[in-house]
């Protein structure tokens, strides 16, 4: 099916806000990482804490469990996930902004 022709025939407008909302939903689960016996979100807050933390520290995971972690190892892992996911999200958003 030629969906471009279809939406043109329908005179449908591209919904930028809904598309932006969709991307947020799409990428939300990609930031979730299970590591060192806990469940973490690769977000700026967690990364900032891990960057400054001692080697061994205790952090509350997404399920409210305090877990003893190797901060440097977790930082490396979360940073990798964060960068990769944000890059994909950013690129897809740039593509989306070109749509009319």
């Amino acid at each position, binding site marked *: 099916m030629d969906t471009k022709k279809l*939406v043109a025939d*329908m005179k*449908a407008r591209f919904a930028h806000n809904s598309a932006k909302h*969709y991307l947020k*939903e*799409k990428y939300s*689960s990609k930031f*979730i990482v299970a590591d060192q016996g806990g*469940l973490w979100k690769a977000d700026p807050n967690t990364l900032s804490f891990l960057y400054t933390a001692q080697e061994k520290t205790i952090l509350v995971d997404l399920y409210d469990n305090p877990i003893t972690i190797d901060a440097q190892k977790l930082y490396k892992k979360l940073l990798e996930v964060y960068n990769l996911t944000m890059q994909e999200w950013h690129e897809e958003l740039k593509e989306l902004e070109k749509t009319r």
Partner: protein
Amino acid sequence: MSRGVLLFGFNSPKVDYVSMASYTARRINNFLKLPVTLVTDEESTENYYEFEDFEKIIKIDSNKDNIFRDDIWINKGRYMAYELSPYDETILLDVDYMVNSDRLLKIFDLLEDYVCHESMCHLMKPEITQENLSDFSFPILWATVIGFKKTQKAKQLFDCMKMVQENYAHYGHLYTFSVDTYRNDYSLTIAHRIVNGHISDKKNILPWNLIHIGLKTKLYVERKSKYNTKYTIVFDQWKNNKLKKEYINIADTDFHVINKEVFLELM
């Protein structure tokens, strides 16, 4: 440690759920690389000869006394998933869940006993709030995706779902919801609260939203193929007292199609 997906599919006079299950199984095999077992009944399978997408077919006696929108809706007996699943770790999935990625594999990373969705979003209607069991009650859990291990606690959950199903009118009266149509979402919600001592435990909740494609939405595929993952969603939006059509394009995203006719058109 065996892992797999369990689907329940019973044909109704209007909807061919076994075909839907077959289509979904093919996508699960491709994107998740997991075996799929179908739970169905004799009647639903008499016209099918090929079940190559399933590792196993389990036939049970179906309960046909549930009605939804003037059609028989065979959704009772979902509690049997625990006993019927041939896998140590199972994802119990609705057949109208469109698998377009490997996102569900993440369930196995966080699975202790069971997990399911509490929060959802409608892609085109972000303003729709979470559904509650009733006006003065708590948010419902969604039975669309349930991951479970064969543990004592998971068994308790499914045993409790059975109890709620068998005493649905009582629980409807207790929590003041309509009992006209039986919903697994409701029995899961109540069972989850019972097995956790009426305290919601975050560890049983998936930390991302269940994405719904709502009823008044049209969904088109770029190209009808086995594993297409690109869709255009068209929907009506009121703007300045005029009804206007809007659309978005989505790709590589799992979603739950509420309108069965829309799902059948995608196959």
